[in-house]
C-alpha cells in the first residue's frame, strides 16, 4: 500500500499499437471468406400473355428447330451448333429485320437449347422468338 501511495495515480492503458494488426487480420478474414458470386446467365424477355400475335412476313423469319437428338435445323437445313453464329450474322447483314424463331422439341435437352440460344446471343441478335 505504501508503495502505491508513493507512486501516486498509476496510468493504466490498453496497448493500442497492435490495433491495426488485429484490424488487418479481420479484414483479410472477411476478404477471403466473402464469395462475391455474381449470377451469370442469358437474359430474355418473354412475350406477355396478353400480346396478340403479330403477323410477319415469311421472308423476315428464320426458323430454328431443335430435335430430341440435338440436331439443329435452320430453315430446313441441318446445321452444326457452332455454325449458327456465323450463319445468323450473315442473315442479319442481309436483312436487318430478320427475326429468329427458336423452337425445341419437348424432349430436347435444356443444354442444347442454351447452346443454340448462346450462339444467337453471340451473333448480337435483337429479336429472338421462342416458339412454344
Amino acid at each position, binding site marked *: 500500500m505504501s508503495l502505491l501511495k508513493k507512486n501516486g495515480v498509476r496510468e493504466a492503458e490498453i496497448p493500442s499499437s497492435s490495433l491495426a494488426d488485429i484490424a488487418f487480420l479481420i*479484414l483479410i478474414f472477411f476478404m477471403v471468406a*466473402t464469395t462475391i458470386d455474381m449470377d451469370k446467365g*442469358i*437474359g430474355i424477355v418473354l412475350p406477355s400473355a396478353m400480346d396478340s400475335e403479330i403477323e410477319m412476313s415469311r421472308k423476315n423469319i428464320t426458323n430454328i428447330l431443335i430435335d430430341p437428338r440435338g440436331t439443329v435445323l435452320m430453315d430446313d437445313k441441318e446445321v452444326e451448333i457452332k455454325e449458327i453464329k456465323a450463319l445468323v450474322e450473315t442473315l442479319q447483314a442481309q436483312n436487318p429485320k430478320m427475326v429468329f424463331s427458336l423452337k425445341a422439341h*419437348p424432349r430436347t435437352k*435444356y443444354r442444347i*437449347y442454351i447452346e443454340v*440460344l448462346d450462339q444467337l446471343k453471340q451473333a448480337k441478335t435483337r429479336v429472338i422468338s421462342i416458339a412454344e
Partner: protein
Amino acid sequence: MRFKKKAKMKIAIPTASMPDIVFMLIFFFMVSSVLRTHEGLAIVMPKAKQIEKLESKVHVTYIWVSKEGMISIDGRLFQVQSIRNIMYEKRVADPQLIVSIRSDELVNMEIISKIHFELRQADALAVNYSTRAI
C-alpha cells in the same frame, strides 16, 4: 551544397488513421457479403459464352429445376402449375422481378416450356437462364 542540408528532412507517412481506414474496409466487406439463406436443388448448369451479369440480387427469384423434374422455389418443392400464383404474388410485390431459371442441363425442354407458359400467365416476363461461363 545547400541542397544537401535540406535533403536530410525526415518524411513519414502518417499512420495514425490507418486503423480507421482498415475498419472502414472491414465494415464494407461485412455489409456487402451476403450469406446464403437457402440452397436449391443439386444441379449441373449448362455452359454458355455470351452471358450477362444480373445487376442486383434484390429483385431475383430463383426457380430450381433438377434433372428428375423437381421444381423448387425458395427452398420448397412445387408443381409446375403453382408457379403462376407464386410468381404473380412476387410480381405484384416487386414489379422489377427477374426470374432466374436454374435448371440442370439434362432437363427436357417440355418442363422449361411449361415454366415459360406459367411465367407468361403470371406476367413475370424478365427471365434469366443461369449458366456457367465456359
